[in-house]
């Protein structure tokens, strides 16, 4: 059982207030959508939850089995997909997977990686350099990278971006699977993606 507690979060740039006093609490099985106008801070909110950006006010707490997760260990519990997160273009899809397995302390097995790539329709391109991939293929590989360590907290910033109908179905399956045991936070204004959520946090209100 995991819990994500966001309390009084605010982000200010100089004199500009991006958002302020945002609070919500999620437990395993919950899916929340963060919506808002362009520039309202949806992506920044996800970056704050992941620990990539410090909030100007408030705090983000994560718990698993009622034990708090220290900020420095958060990376092991969080999987994130975002347009701003890039993979290594000079490596192949398989080499990218190998790197993320090794750096995250996951046993690397070539055959298993092929199985995973098959699920996102990338098996034919496993040994191709990522720099030659289309944006949709890169997005699929980003999804694999985010899920490779089975994170209980899944942060998806516009997850369906650049994906075709099969890719969108994969995203739907990933979210419904995550619902069975973890927490999902989706930042999007896409109606289809917002519909996956049980609750909405609108940053423009």
């Amino acid at each position, binding site marked *: 059982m995991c819990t994500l507690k966001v309390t009084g979060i605010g982000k200010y740039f100089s004199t500009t207030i991006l958002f302020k006093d945002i609070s919500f609490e999620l437990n395993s099985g919950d899916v929340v959508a963060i919506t808002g106008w362009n520039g309202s801070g949806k992506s920044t909110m996800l970056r704050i939850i992941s620990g990539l950006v410090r909030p100007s006010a408030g705090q983000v707490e994560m718990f698993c089995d009622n034990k708090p997760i220290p900020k420095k260990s958060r990376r092991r519990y969080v999987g994130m997909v975002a347009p701003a997160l890039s993979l290594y273009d000079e490596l192949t899809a398989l080499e990218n997977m190998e790197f993320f397995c090794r750096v995250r302390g996951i046993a690397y097995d070539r055959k298993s990686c092929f199985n995973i790539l098959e699920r996102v329709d990338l098996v034919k391109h496993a040994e191709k350099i990522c720099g030659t991939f289309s944006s949709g293929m890169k997005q699929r590989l980003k999804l694999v990278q985010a899920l490779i360590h089975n994170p209980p907290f899944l942060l998806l910033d516009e997850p369906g971006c650049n994906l075709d109908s099969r890719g969108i179905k994969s995203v739907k399956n990933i979210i419904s699977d995550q619902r069975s*045991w973890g927490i999902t936070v989706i930042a999007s204004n896409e109606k289809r993606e917002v519909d996956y959520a049980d609750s909405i946090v609108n940053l423009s209100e």
Partner: protein
Amino acid sequence: MHPTKSGRWITQTVSSTYLSEAVAIWFRDLRSEFRTRYAVNSILMFALTTLVAVSFSIGSFRIEESERPFLYAVLLWIILVFSALSGLSRSFVKEQEAGTMDILKLSARPQAVFLGKLFFNLTMLGALGLIIVPAFILLMGYKIKFPGCFAAMMVTGGLGLGAGTTLVAAMIAQADARGALFSALSFPLLLPLIITAIKGSERAAYGISAAGWPEVKIAAAYAVIMITVSLLLFPLIWEE
């Protein structure tokens, strides 16, 4: 690691240490470098150009025999330092420019990232030294009376140079005027090391009885201090 029918991956977690994470980053950087050859080309072209220019214009016969150990030590370290600065400054900048900085922050611990980048920079410096130092000795007719001491000076000087440039490279990665900032920050940080390394190399070449070793010890201490301080400071630089 395999997916279940419901779609979730089942991954077998093995122990992850700072060293294993650092080695993963080191190998990934080497693989990327092998494909792009950005740092290698930059470092080697600078080193070879300056080495050839120096050897053609000065050669082994234009300098008095007694002055050679000192002047050659100066020239050798100038070539090594500026060649290293031309390529190693990009170790973090390339992550920033490729947009992979955040994914690295989410995947590895800061200290492991620093160590991985340090290993990569030391590999580049090692390769540079293995090519340039023998070539310099051959082309310039550099006679070294204490080769062991000279080699130790090269190794400890290289370690300090690698540690210093890696830390500065991390500091400038998110700045706008990276090139100017790298030079401005590297100069005061590396100056004590360069002076020590020149002095040590000169003494090893002159063959002053065991006199090169104090500089070797100073350079080794510099490298240890720099690596320790970097490991303590790097998380503050790495995280916003």
